C-alpha cells in the first residue's frame, strides 16, 4: 500500500507491530523456553522425535481432504450463482449461515447426526439399520466442509463475476468445446479466486480444534488440538508455542504457494 502522506500510515504500522509482529515474536520466544523457563531448543527436538510429526502429517492430510471437497462443491455453486437472475440475493442467502457462531452449528450437528436424529430417521425410512454417524472421519470432514463452503464461494464468485463474458463467447466462436472453454479460459481466469478460497479454507482447517472433539470424538487430532492441550492442560507453553511456530511456517508456505502473481495486462 502507498500513502500520500507518511503520517497516514502510522496507525497501520502500530497495528501491525502490536498485533502481528509482537505476537509472532512472543510465540518464537516462548518456543525456546523449557518448563523451568530456561533457554533451550529441546522443544524443537521433541517436535521431531515424538508423535507431533505424525500429527502434523495427519492434520495436513485432513486439511487437504477438507479443502478438496470444499472446492469441488463451492466452484460449481459459485458458477451457477453467477448465472442466476438475483445472484447477489442468492449469495447473501448462502453467506448468512456463516454469521452464526461456529460452535452453535457444530452442536446442532450432534443432534442431526445422532442415533435418533433426522439423518438416521431417513436411513431407517429407506429400510437400512440406523448407524452412529457421529464420531467418524466422515462426520468430521462433512461438518468441516459445511463450515468452510461460504468462505470458498465468496472469492470464487467474485472472480467469476468480474470475468468478461465476451471471452467465453469468443472461445465458443473459435470452436472450443464447453470443457475446453472451462479448462483453458474460465478456470485460468478465476484461478486467483480459487487461490484465495484455498487459503481461507486450508489454513483454518489445519488448526480446527473444537470440531475434532465434538464431531470426531478426539479420534482426529489436529495441530490446533495439540496446542490447546499444551497450553491448558500440560501447561507447557514452550511446547505449545513450538507447535504454533510450525503451524505459522506451514501457513507461510501455503501463502507463498498460492500467492497472486503480479503480471502486466488485465486479468
Amino acid at each position, binding site marked *: 500500500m502507498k500513502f500520500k502522506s507518511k503520517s497516514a500510515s502510522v496507525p497501520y504500522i502500530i497495528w501491525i507491530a502490536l498485533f502481528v509482529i509482537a505476537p509472532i515474536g512472543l510465540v518464537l520466544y516462548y518456543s525456546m523456553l523449557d518448563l523451568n523457563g530456561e533457554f533451550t531448543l529441546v522443544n524443537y527436538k521433541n517436535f521431531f522425535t515424538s508423535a507431533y510429526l505424525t500429527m502434523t502429517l495427519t492434520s495436513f492430510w485432513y486439511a487437504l481432504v477438507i479443502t478438496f471437497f470444499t472446492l469441488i462443491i463451492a466452484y460449481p455453486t459459485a458458477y451457477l450463482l453467477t448465472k442466476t437472475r438475483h445472484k447477489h440475493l442468492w449469495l447473501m442467502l448462502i453467506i448468512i449461515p456463516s454469521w452464526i457462531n461456529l460452535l452453535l452449528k457444530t452442536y446442532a450437528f450432534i443432534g442431526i447426526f445422532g*442415533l435418533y436424529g433426522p439423518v438416521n430417521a431417513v436411513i431407517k425410512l429407506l429400510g437400512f439399520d440406523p448407524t452412529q454417524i457421529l464420531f467418524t472421519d466422515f462426520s468430521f470432514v462433512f461438518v468441516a466442509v459445511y463450515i468452510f463452503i461460504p468462505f470458498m464461494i465468496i472469492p470464487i464468485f467474485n472472480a467469476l463475476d468480474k470475468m468478461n463474458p465476451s471471452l467465453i463467447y469468443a472461445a465458443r466462436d473459435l470452436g472450443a468445446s464447453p470443457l475446453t472453454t472451462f479448462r483453458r479460459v474460465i478456470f485460468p481466469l478465476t484461478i486467483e479466486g480459487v487461490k484465495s478460497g484455498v487459503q481461507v479454507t486450508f489454513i483454518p482447517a489445519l488448526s480446527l480444534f473444537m470440531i475434532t*472433539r465434538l464431531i470426531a470424538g478426539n479420534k482426529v487430532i489436529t495441530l490446533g488440538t495439540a496446542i490447546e492441550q499444551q497450553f491448558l492442560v*500440560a501447561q507447557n507453553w514452550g*511446547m505449545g508455542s513450538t507447535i504454533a511456530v510450525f503451524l505459522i511456517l506451514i501457513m507461510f508456505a501455503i501463502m507463498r504457494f498460492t500467492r497472486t502473481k503480479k503480471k502486466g495486462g488485465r486479468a
Partner: protein
Amino acid sequence: MKSLIQIMLAIVIACGLLSFAASKLEAANSAGGKDTLVVYNWGEYIDPSLIDQFEEETGISVIYETYDSNEAMLTKIRQGGSAYDVVVPSEYTIETMIKEDLLIEIDHSKLPNLQNIDPYFLDLPFDPKNKYSIPYFWGTVGVVYNPNEIPKHITFDSWDDLWDPALKNKVFLVDGAREIMGMGLNSLGYSLNSRDDNQLREALEKLKLLNGNVKAIIGDEITPLMINNEATVAVTFSGQAADMMFENEELDYAVPQEGSNLWFDNMVIPKTSKNVAGAHQFMNFMLDAEVAAQNTDYVGYAIPNKAAWELLDDEVVNDERFYPHEESRNNLEVYENLGLELLGTYNEYFLEFKMSLE
C-alpha cells in the same frame, strides 16, 4: 479518507460511551466495595437459588463466574488481575496453589459450621489441618453404563471389562489425561500416580488395545448422549453419572475393584481476594446442613457434610456407588501433584493413545 476518519471517530465515541456506562453500572453494583463477593466455581456446581439466599441473608451481592478445568482456573489466578474471593479447585491443584503461595490461611474460628464435616474429609495430606481449604464436594471416577444394552457378564467389577470384544464401538471416555492414563495404570494394578516410565508405557500399550471399542473421547457432551441412550458405556466422574442416572433410570454406575480415583473439591481463598471476611461468611453458609443438603440435591455429587446426610434421603446417602464406605475407599487413590514434567509425559502418552484410535 475523511469519511474513514468520521467512521473511526464514531466507533471511538461509541466505545467511550459504552465503557462509561459499564463503569457506572459496575459502580452501582459494587456500592461500598466490601459488599460484593466474587465466586469462581465449576460449571453447574451450585444451586443458583442458594446464591440468592446468601445475598438476602448477608446483604452481600455475589458475582458468580465459572470455569471448566483446574488448569484454566489456575492460569487465571496466577496471572493476577482477578479479584476472586472464593474458588473451588481439586486437591492436586490446591497442593500446587499452596506451594506457589497463592492462598490465604483460613480462620477456622469464623467457620462454626465446620464441625458438620465428616472427619474423614479433614486434615488430608494435600492440606494438613485444612489451613487453606474447606471441603465442598467429593467423588470418584468410574463407569456409567446401560445394563440392558450389554451382555450380562459385563459388570465393570474390573476395568478389564472395558476391553471385552462385546463392547465394540460402544465405549466413551472422558477427555482427561490423568483419568484415562490412571485407568490404564489401575487396570494393570499400578498406582494412578505412577512415576515409573515403564509402567506408563505398559499402560499406554494396554490402552491402545482398546482401539476397536472406543467410540469417542469427549467431555460434558457425554451427558446428553447417555441420557438419550445414544451411548452405552462411559468412563466419567461420579457426579456426572448421577446426573445421567437421574434423567435415565436404566443406567447404572460402578467403580472397578482394582481401584480408581478419589477426588475432593475444596473451597479456598486466593491471595487476590478483596473481601476475606465475606469469603469466610460464604464458606460458613455453604457448610450449613440445610444449605449443603439442598445443594447436593441440585448438583448430584457426594457431600462431605455429615449433618446434611441426616437431611438427605437414606437412599442417596447409603448408595454405595456414590458414597463408598471407608473400607472400599481404601482401593481408591487421590491424585498427587506430579509436577509439570511428569504431567507433560502423561499428556504426551494420552495424545499418543488418541492418535492410535481409528
